[in-house]
């Protein structure tokens, strides 16, 4: 016998579920009457949303000056939050597209949910480019729309690339998400008992029957979308990073930004997915589907991307020294030891040190601990954006125009408010849409595999379990 033994993948779905029970498990959430707790959460979310609307209203009424911006720091929390939210918005598409191409079937448990998170995060992100400008009422000038000035946007501007990148990313993610939803909406349509749901889900399902001729094109489309979304998801944060990399400010003007931003985005995205997943699966009893194996896999990704980000931080320092550009050297020394040292070291601690604990399997599989780290990581990533945006501007070329940025209450309220948008949408999603891709989950059940049946159509699944690793002496 061979020295090695085939160790099969652990079952993706725990407990002995069949198709019907899966359907029930997921659709019940949407079909059963709304739980009290949901209303409570929704109320809090709406309150935060109110805060956002108030803060933005005041901003528009008074002017950008209500924020802490100044010379030389022309970009503050608004841009930080934008980059932060977009970063979070990377996990969903990455999970559904890249993991799909890599045939990582475990993605099916979380992709729906991660995609939803992506879309809502991108919505939050999109708020900021809109409101951070001085004249919000003419923001539409960034689009190539014929206007009375007969002028067109400036295609040399990274900010304009952003407009295209982020809006494309949003649209494609939305389509991707919807395509995935269609068969599940059909399921809900057929499960729904009351007229309103029947009609609503019916419209959403577009008359999907589950015809295999349709599935045939459907899978093709899904594959192509995944193929398109993969470079797209990588391009978005690349282009966001151009906002900085293409400028000439020390600490911004660096070629490492694209990969480093993408890594950071995946890092924070997965952390956010974990944060939400761990709560949701508890509340809705989805442990069978969103298992600790998923959690562990995601923790591994966090460990990897976190280390990549850490590598980038160190690389920046090295290159600053190696380039011999005095302004570069100065800005990196100032980041670590200057007026913003606290931000820099918070970032280092949260993003580089904290994920290293996931080298230990015990911690990778520890729910409470994972939850804690997932929060820490997102704090760290916010500080990363703060360090990049603010410190570079505050201490650039001419010492005479160095300054110190401090936010006002309105910066804070606007940021906190975006969580209102996010959770309002997310709670609505949990309530009204299937949080798990039912069809896809069914497809990865052993029962779904024709090879698990004999010619009399009897079901003979081979038992799948993780065996104790045997070490044989040779």
């Amino acid at each position, binding site marked *: 016998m061979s020295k090695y033994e085939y160790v099969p993948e652990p079952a993706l779905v725990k407990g002995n579920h069949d198709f019907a029970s899966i359907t029930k498990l997921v659709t019940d959430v949407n079909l059963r009457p709304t739980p009290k707790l949901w209303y409570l959460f929704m109320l809090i979310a709406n309150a935060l949303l109110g805060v956002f609307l108030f803060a933005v209203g005041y901003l528009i009424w008074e*002017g950008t000056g209500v924020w802490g911006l*100044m*010379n030389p720091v022309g*970009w503050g929390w608004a841009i930080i939050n934008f980059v932060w939210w977009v970063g979070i918005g990377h996990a969903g598409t990455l999970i559904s597209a890249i993991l799909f191409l890599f045939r990582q079937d475990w993605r099916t448990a979380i992709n729906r949910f991660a995609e939803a998170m992506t879309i809502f995060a991108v919505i939050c992100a999109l708020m900021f480019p809109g409101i951070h400008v*001085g004249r919000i009422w003419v923001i539409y*000038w960034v689009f190539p729309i014929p206007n009375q000035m007969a002028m067109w946007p400036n295609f040399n501007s990274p900010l304009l690339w952003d407009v295209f990148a982020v809006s494309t990313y949003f649209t494609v993610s939305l389509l991707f998400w919807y395509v995935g939803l269609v068969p599940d909406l059909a399921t809900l349509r057929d499960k729904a008992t009351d007229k309103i749901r029947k009609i609503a889900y019916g419209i959403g399902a577009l008359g999907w029957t589950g015809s295999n001729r349709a599935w045939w094109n459907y899978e093709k489309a899904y594959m192509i979308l995944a193929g398109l979304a993969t470079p797209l998801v990588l391009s978005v944060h690349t282009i966001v990073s151009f906002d900085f990399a293409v400028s000439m400010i020390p600490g911004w003007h660096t070629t490492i930004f694209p990969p480093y931003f993408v890594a950071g985005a995946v890092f924070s995205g997965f952390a956010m997915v974990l944060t939400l997943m761990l709560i949701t699966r508890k509340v809705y009893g989805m442990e069978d589907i969103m298992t600790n194996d998923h959690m562990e896999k995601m923790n591994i990704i966090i460990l990897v991307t976190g280390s990549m980000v850490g590598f980038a931080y160190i690389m920046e320092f090295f290159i600053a020294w190696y380039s011999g550009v*005095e302004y570069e050297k100065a800005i990196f020394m100032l980041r670590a030891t200057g007026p913003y040292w606290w931000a820099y070291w918070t970032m280092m601690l949260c993003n580089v040190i904290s994920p290293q604990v996931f080298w230990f399997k015990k911690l990778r599989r520890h729910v409470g601990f994972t939850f804690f780290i997932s929060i820490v990581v997102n704090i760290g990533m916010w500080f990363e954006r703060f360090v990049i945006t603010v410190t570079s501007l505050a201490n650039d070329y*001419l010492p005479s125009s160095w300054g110190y940025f401090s936010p006002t209450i309105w910066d804070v309220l606007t940021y906190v408010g975006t969580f209102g948008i996010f959770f309002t949408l997310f709670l609505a999603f949990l309530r009204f849409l299937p949080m798990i891709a039912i069809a896809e989950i069914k497809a990865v059940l052993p029962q779904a595999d024709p090879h698990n049946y004999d010619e009399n159509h009897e079901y003979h699944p081979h038992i799948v379990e993780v065996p104790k690793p045997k070490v044989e002496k040779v």
Partner: protein
Amino acid sequence: MSEVTQNTYWKSLNELAQNKEYKNFVEREFPENATELTDGVSRKGFLRVMGASIALAGFAACRRPVQKILPYSNQPEDIVPGIPLFYATAMPFQGSLTGLVVENHEGRPTKVEGNDLHPGSWGNTNAYHQATILEMYDPDRSRSPLRNGEKATIQDFVAFAKNYFTDRNKRIAFISEANSSPTYTTLKQSALRKFSNAKWVTYEPFGEDNAIEGNRIAFGSRLRTHYNYTNADVVVSLDDDFLSPTHPNNVEYAKQVTGRRKVTSNSDSMNRIYSIENGFTLTGAYADNRLRVKASEVEAFANALAATLSTRVNGLNAFRSVNNHFTGSDFITALADDLASHAGSSAVSIGFAHSSNSHAVVAAINTALNNNGSTVNYLQVPSFDNQNNKQAFADVVSGMKAGNFDAVVMIGTNPVYTTSADLDFAGALENVDEVIHFGTYKDESSKSASWHISRSHFLEAWGDGFSFGGARSVIQPQIQPLHDSLSEIELLSTIVNEDLVSGYELVQNTFKGYYSGSGFENRWKDILHDGVDVKEVYRKATVSLRTVTPSQTTSIDGIEVVIRPDASIYDGRFANLGWLQELPDPMTKITWDNVALMSPATATSLGVENEGLVNVAVNGKSITIAAWIQPGHADDSITLNVGYGREGIGRVADKGIESSQLFDPSENYGGVNIYPLHTSLFASGAVSVTKGTYKIACVQDHHSLEGRDMYRQATLEKYKNTPEYASFAYVHKYAVPGMKEAAELGEDQPISLFDEQTYSADEPQWGMAIDLNSCFGCGVCVIACQSENNIPVIGKREVSRGREMHWIRNDRYYMGDEHNPQAVHQPVPCMHCELAPCEQVCPVAATTHSDDGMNQMTYNRCIGTRYCANNCPFKVRRFNFFNYPKEYLTSGEDPDIIQMAMNPEVTVRFRGVMEKCTYCVQRVNRAKIDSKIKTKSPKPADGSVVTACQQACPADAIYFGDLTDNNSVVAKMKHNERNYLMLEELNVRPRTSYIAKLTNPNPVLVDETNQEPAH
């Protein structure tokens, strides 16, 4: 509730509501301190501003003077709308005139420039001259006379004068500002003739009394010392800040001193400036050798200098005996040698405020050095009183206290504010029944006056006078008085003649005296046209030195408290001018406040940081003020600037609490009144740290160059050996990156990834060069730019948030030892980079390049992403975080006269748009159009385009012109080996370049004032 109803409501309660709410409301309502920004900013309001300003243009047009006045440049048939006219006039300040030319749009004065023909100006100005236009349109100016606080009219006063001043035995005390006007002097004499019991004193808190008295001691007659630095190879300033606008003749002196430092090749020579002072002044920063000593030791230094010189030149034997801790020091020996070897071509001066005896000593030194006649002249000034005014003023005040006066007439002075507490001037006024105060503002003195007479601004009224050097001019009004007011000569004639005679008549009568008969009419036209009549009227006295003995100096052991006028608002008379309040102090870069300046060592020993409160006590009186560390300040010496801490003067000047923005802590502003402590220049004082801090709005947080190469300089010696000292290659020891490759391709600019746009040959290409060797950092360019380009005043909070709007700023860096550093100034406007980093990042192409190579902002395309400002390596872009213009231009009154100060050729920028230096594109295009009409070519002749900053600069440090014309001055400057680009390695190709600084320190002292180029 809408603003309008608010206004009327409060206005009706105006007199009653002296309560906190009302004060807050006033502060909220009143823009110049920009607390407004927190109230609802409505576009309606903005439109109202625009509407109003259009209306005002018409309103202005019908206010043209009735008297015939002649345009300075070319006389049109009639006013062509849109084409400004230029009229000559002159600004009186500190008993001397500076000739000006005022730009008028449809009969509305909008901009002040210097008069090329006037010896006090030679075409240039200082910040006070530039800001005076704002003073005329100041909504807080006194708009009518007050009788016992009640609104009255000029007619009422004339009626009053008719019966009150008939009694020739009235015991009247005239307390007048210094005024050079011959008409005024004549009226003064007739007044004294008329009222036999009258006393006349000229009171100026920082006047030249001691200098005059010093000359009396030295030469026996009351003379003005007038320097001619053009002939001076060695200039010694004993605590005499003659480059600062606080000096009545700073424009002429600045021009002369900097004129001797225009170095075009390494064979040229330069004058050498020594400065001995306690604080860091503009003159000290510009000096080649600076010695920091306590102000109380300056006199001792003067004696020691005389002593050291006595062994080298004749005529100072009286000083042989002097021996103090200065005698024998390296500095004084080297200085004496230098002076002795430049006898006849050196000039020693000492600050006005120093004792009359020390002035006599300096007079003796200059005489001994044979400087008299070549670099120093002593002028006989008719307007001088034949008395020691300091003494006379004290006598008058004690007379008032004793009840020896029936009436006091304060003409253009504000003694209640500007006298020290122990004099108790306000108390003295109580023993006088008729107190007549004549001034521009309803100020401290007018509060305790039975008559307040509103003063016509000099741009509104006829007048005359002499420049510091004695050139006679007529002050020509540019517009009819905006308010019910009198000029000082009209006031005086009303008192003397008991009837109102128009200023026009009075002035003409004076000049008819000079030009009798028919010749007068033509002469009169020329005088008005040229703005100057005779250039040297004051006679130069031929002086012979009496025996001057060393003055008895008392050195202050502990801490000395030095009190000086403020560089921005002088003695407080400009306190309500937002432009000047927001003009950063040339050295400290502080706006809106005064502080207690002290050396780092003193601060350490006191244990106080910047903004920490200290209590300063001088003989019993004490004030609490924020401390500020001034590197290079003398130890154990505290410098305080007067003019702040005003109450009830106006919206800008008044101190108080800003109505705080939601959730923001309210902040103090307005500064502290120093006058209670002010008895003399310096006094022994006690300083103690008290709890708390006071927020200071300083526009420059970081004062070190960090060893960077933005500012390049060398000593004259070094320049002779290494002319290329300013080049990038020399500073960095390697060529500009991309230059080698470019050379291979035969290009003269570093290579770039793109094949750049080229400019058509038939368009001019604008460029600017700033000569750091001339610039001494006064900051007039900032105000000139603000006036020309309608830059709003944004208030202390916004400035302290780092949102200053000035299009040209004046960076000040300290170099070398923290305790005794060198300070350098560097004006930074937009660099108009050819490969501008700001342009490519704008998503909507709101900033682009013009065919004549200027980096342009398209305001109405800008959406305000601020990306351009971020990407500007020079950080010269300014953002309208709030609707500043609305806050600045609307006071709630109708009409908003301050809007008349705006330049109609420049857009008023709205909230949310970016703005920056335009190279005065409105001037450029006017010149291009003219040139197209005249010569069919869009290239104006060299010198026909002058930017506002360039025109104002008394040091002629700024050169601007067409780079395609190789003979243009700017092109020549750019070919000079000292020309360098800031951040050249970025290859953004700035159109604005710098001419590296040169210093000329005494080789013997070169170690003490070690000045190496920064890199």
